[in-house]
């Protein structure tokens, strides 16, 4: 019988892949977003920072910061799911992965945000769900919350263009 892989080996492989995916995105560093991983489940975390504030008198998170956070959570979830098969099932090689750099990210076609209540000046969390993922297009829903996971302060749905193996002539370049 084959011996199961040691847990540290599995964790290191998955965390290396996640860091490679997220680490090179400047905007993620700008907002200070990190990702908590449990198995394949990701939770995006936006630690509170004064620069994320919109109305300083409330104070409340800027709608643009909330939208950016939701979009990052959605696109990383989508890319992560695509990568997961390679990490677990396939020929994933952390060294080659590190050498070749980050996999290409899906491009946002459109992104629609509902603001449900003001974002408070404290950490925010988001989880995204890929509702449809085809060869070319994907649809992702994402919700963000602060104190209570059942009281989201914002939600969004976006459509994404999946990275194609070769250059194509699709008009959407966003």
């Amino acid at each position, binding site marked *: 019988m084959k011996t199961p892989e040691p847990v540290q080996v599995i964790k290191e492989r998955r965390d290396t892949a996640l860091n490679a995916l997220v680490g090179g*995105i*400047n*905007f993620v*560093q*700008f*907002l200070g977003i990190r990702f908590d991983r449990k198995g394949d489940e990701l939770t995006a975390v936006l630690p509170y920072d*004064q*620069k*994320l*504030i*919109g*109305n*300083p*008198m*409330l104070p*409340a*998170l*800027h*709608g*643009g*910061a909330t*939208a*950016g*956070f939701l*979009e*990052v959570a959605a*696109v990383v979830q989508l890319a992560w799911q695509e990568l997961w098969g390679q990490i677990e099932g396939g020929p994933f090689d952390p060294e080659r992965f590190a050498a070749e750099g980050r996999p*290409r*990210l899906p*491009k*946002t*076609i*459109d*992104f*629609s*945000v*509902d*603001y449900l*209540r*003001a974002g408070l000046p404290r950490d925010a969390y988001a989880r995204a769900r890929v509702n449809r993922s085809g060869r070319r297009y994907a649809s992702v829903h994402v919700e963000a919350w602060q104190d209570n996971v059942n009281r989201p302060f914002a939600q969004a749905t976006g459509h994404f263009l999946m990275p194609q193996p070769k250059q194509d002539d699709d008009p*959407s*370049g*966003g």
Partner: protein
Amino acid sequence: MSDFSVDWVQSFIDALPYSKALGMRADEVSEGRVSISMPYAQALAGDGEVLHGGAISALMDTTSGTAVMTLPKGLGTATLDLRIDYMRAATPGQRVRASAECYHITRTVVFVRTTAWDEDESKPVATAAGAFTYGHMRAPRTPEEMQAAMQALATRQKELGQ
């Protein structure tokens, strides 16, 4: 004629830490219409050198919301929803300018359309359509009024439990 100046819009933007962090600049203003631009920054890149959609979202949200603020009862508006369509990648290194227009105003809601371009004005980088709450209070005309209004807004939103 509108009595809103570009300086008024700039002072408003500067009061929003996130908009200020992104270096937003007020370019044009009239009642229900505002243009705001933002410089390219490598720190805001997503894939490669291209600006991340989330950075464009912030510009679209600020520009749309500020356009509502210039309406007679626009202060204290909040975004209900904002949908952004990304037409193409903004060219790295170029400034992005967004122009918002309040195209329909009801007693309680304002509908806003916003378009963003880089230096190539023939092809938009992104467009947005949003709905904003309306009918809260008169927009402030001086820095003192601005301060008082922001405070009143905060109190009101706290009352609403938002």
